[in-house]
């Protein structure tokens, strides 16, 4: 497919930003749990607790 150089509207990019923000907010609890699990793993492997 030949390179199509005509630019696309920036609206798609801002839509991506908005959706990213919503997704991250919805999954904030999951992120918190995940970080705690990472911390638990590091703690167990380094300090054996």
């Amino acid at each position: 497919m030949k390179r199509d150089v005509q630019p696309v509207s920036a609206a798609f990019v801002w839509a991506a930003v908005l959706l990213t923000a919503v997704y991250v907010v919805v999954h904030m609890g999951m992120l918190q749990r995940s970080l705690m699990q990472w911390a638990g793993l590091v703690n167990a492997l380094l300090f054996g607790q």
Partner: protein
Amino acid sequence: MVGTAQFVALNGFTALAALALASRCRVSSAAERLLAVTVLFVGVALVSGLALGVTGHLRFWPLLATQAFVAMVAAWMARWEAVAAMKPALHPSRIVVGAAQRGAALLLVVAYLFVAFIAIVSEPDAGDALMYHLPLVAAYARDGAITVPALGAFWNTDLWAYYPGTAYVLSQWWVLPFGSGVLVDLVQLPAAAATALATFVLARRLGVSREAAMWSAMLFLAMPIVINQCATPLVDVTVAFLFTAGLAFLWTVEVETSQLVLAGIAWGAAPGTKLATLFYLLPGALCVGLYWARGGDQPATRRLLRALAMITVATLALSSYWYARNYWLTGSPIFPVNLRGANPKVWSNILFYGPLLPLLDFTMYDPMFFYNYETGAGVQFVALAIPATFALAARGWRRRHLGVTCLALLPLGMLAFWVVHVSTELHTLFRYVLPVVPIGFAAVGWLMDHAPRRRVQVALAAGSVAFSVVNAVPHVGTFILPASLSTGLASWMLGTGRLGRFDRMGDLAIQDYRRAWAYLDQLAGSHHIAASHLIFSYPMLGADFRHDLHFLEARSREQWLTDLQAANVDHVALAAIADAPDAVAFGAGEVQLHLRVRPTSNESVGVMHVVPASPVRGLRIRYTPPASPNARVVVGLNRFTRIVELPTDLSGTPLEQVIEWRGELHSIEVSLRFDRRTGLYDDLLLQVASIELLLDSDTTVRVPLDPALWARVSWPIEYYWMADDPQHFRLAFRDHDYWSPADSNEMHIYEVVHRPEAGAAGGGDR
């Protein structure tokens, strides 16, 4: 060590053959040639595996000889200068560009190395894998042939043995060198890498720059569902690879014959991997046809017919076996799927949750928001791929390029299709959408090159990779149990036996299956094991798949026992939902209840006794309580019709307790419980010196106990009442803290002794 050497040799020969054959292909970049290598690996492996599997020679050495022969012939034909020309393009500095991409790539490499490590040191714990994927892999390896093994019948899982087995044939490259499933969790790892490569090639063929195409590939690899599936021997990533690779090779108006062959292999192998693949191939072919209709020197119809002919020939060679076999055995080529069966629709799921699902990305399980091998399209799918597919579709529409528009809308179209089709279990949705997701990420690369604010887009891509990796990896295998992980690592480094994978702990939800697994794995020799209403078959087979599994569907208990004897079954494995069969064991002497503390629950054991002829007025038990202050001992009579808790306050001191009972007595259960109010870091030991039945005739009957039986059994087991042998009743030691009666995940294993006079040894080796 031998297994590793055999693994390297087998895969090395097949890879050499694929590389040599790929050197003959006319492609336009190193990435395309590398993708050709991956497709040809599948082609060579599949033809060899099918030929040996159908003829009953699917063993390691015949397979190695076949691959060595093909590699030598291919190497003789190879154009090695074409291989050498790939080298500059594969330098890391050319693959990843810019600090953000290097950082994301490093994160992915570390994450996947860790995922591979987890997969090696932990046992499979994906439900579908334990139900039928792995039993089929194991059956092919054990039988040296493509067979239809007996599976448990829970959810009609026994019928799933008829599913097409291309992926299971390919899995033999990971299984036969070791003679076990020690690396079987990793079978999808190369498929994920190859899918990322196919995504890159597809993006490049959409006119995307190298840098943006690399983001497309990395976004696919960072998908939480892909990360989790790479430690799970399912088939969804493999299907994604075959579909995307075929599509990538076809996405050019001037398709070369060699690329047509490569696309034919990829799409020809796909129907043998999963029945649902046809739902992707048909719309995919439509997109290609529409794309070809726009340009090219040859008429589109002629190119389409050539492609269809090539794919048909490849399908006949690589996938038709499974459909022909099923037609021969069952009368339906797509057995066990019944197209006439009503597919229930849950309209609330379809209309309400369906459109929100990419954004919510949730599961049906507590805590609702977490990633696993079924869920987790990631932020990159909803936030990056979906807007990008709309942008690409709009551009195709404006350019009157219907093929591009259809291709761009395929991920959303398939999402809608599967929302309707699997509306009863939306948490599995992204497994079905996965094969077309690479199109969405190729569109992301396209949008990066065409939309303004590139820095914002790069930041979003890098952030998506980081967010997905950080949240996905903690749900892979044993991650959430660090102590188990460190134990697994230590055992792995010590090189204990078959890597000792079956003594590891993983997801708590299948704790009981893991115990069953460990129990059967430590039994000496091969055994005939009967299963009924059993959801997970794989644990029955042992680490090296040496046990044979039988599915016995008896109409009556007498029929069941007859069937057991006819099949020479020595162990029976049942889920709690099953009607329990009977088992027999005999013995005498002192018994020790030995509870080895595990992170989640207790242990229990059981033994059989002889019922006296006279009426019973009670029983007397002499025991020594456990030393631990939070252990409890409970005696239940007649399946806990009456429950008596024995004193444990004088730990280490022999005690005697009399329990009154009037009437018929046909079972005694002694339960050693662990109250988890505090930590317990040692074994629990309950010593039962004697149990005497007090008869109305003022005499006593000493209940015979069998130390050998106690010593052998180290996880919850029960021996049930025998209808045709009323002179026996059971004494069972149960774990009530962990197993509730309604827990359908419970599994019991019963040892079957066909000749009672042979004593309690039972379960002989073959």
